[in-house]
């Protein structure tokens, strides 16, 4: 277990975006951009059931999350770990993220089932931090 430094944690708590890498069924990497959060122990992001990311993570939970300072591309932190998916608290959490990134609450989409993804850092690499 590799906790984040305060400075690294702040990068996740500020309005920065993350690139998440999951593994496709053929073992290749799938990349996507997500809103990101840190709860003191886990890197957290939010997705919706049926998307490629959660399907990939259910098959192979190994994930890499790289967060870059939107004001300075030479400050970044990359976290690797194993993802845990849950519906519990996912709706509240997407609302929290929406407020963080857009200043407004989340507008739920009919039929969409939100999922919260938690990653406990197993390895952390950083640059400029």
């Amino acid at each position: 277990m590799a906790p984040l430094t305060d400075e690294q944690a702040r990068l996740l708590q500020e309005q920065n975006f993350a690139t998440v890498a999951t593994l496709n069924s053929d073992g290749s990497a799938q990349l996507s951009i997500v809103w990101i959060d840190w709860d003191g122990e886990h890197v957290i992001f939010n997705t919706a059931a049926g998307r490629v990311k959660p399907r990939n993570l259910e098959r192979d939970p190994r994930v890499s999350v790289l967060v870059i300072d939107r004001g300075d591309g030479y400050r970044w932190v990359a976290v690797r770990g194993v993802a845990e998916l849950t519906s519990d608290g996912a709706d509240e959490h997407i609302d929290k993220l929406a407020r963080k990134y857009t200043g407004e609450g989340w507008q739920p989409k009919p039929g969409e089932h939100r999922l919260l993804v938690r990653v406990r850092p197993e390895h952390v690499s950083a640059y400029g931090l």
Partner: protein
Amino acid sequence: MAQLTDKQREFIAENPYVGTVTTLRPDGSPHSTIVWVDAEDGVVTFNTAVGRAKERYLRNDPRAAIMVVHPDNAYRWVSVSGPAELTTEGADRQIDHLAKKYLGKDEYPWRSPTEERITVKIAAEKVDSAGFDE
């Protein structure tokens, strides 16, 4: 084989936006890091040094994926994945070109005599993007 549109290619080639590149460790887990990036016909390129993790991982498994995001607009991005080809030929010239693109310098300022540069070319087998209206 997918192709980059002109706008996608220009987005990568003509802006000093860094890229997130993901390679695969020998155990198959993803390894992500930040690189300077460039693009030409159907190929996204970056530069690294011989012996680094990225280079070793790509020699073991050439599958790579790269994401370039607009720093002020995360809803504008291009992601490319495909097999990577590695070559030291022209890699010194390429790092100078990237130093110009990213630092405005004619020469890469951190050259080390013990370090051999290497160019990685990712064939755009799959291209995804957001924020490009075409």
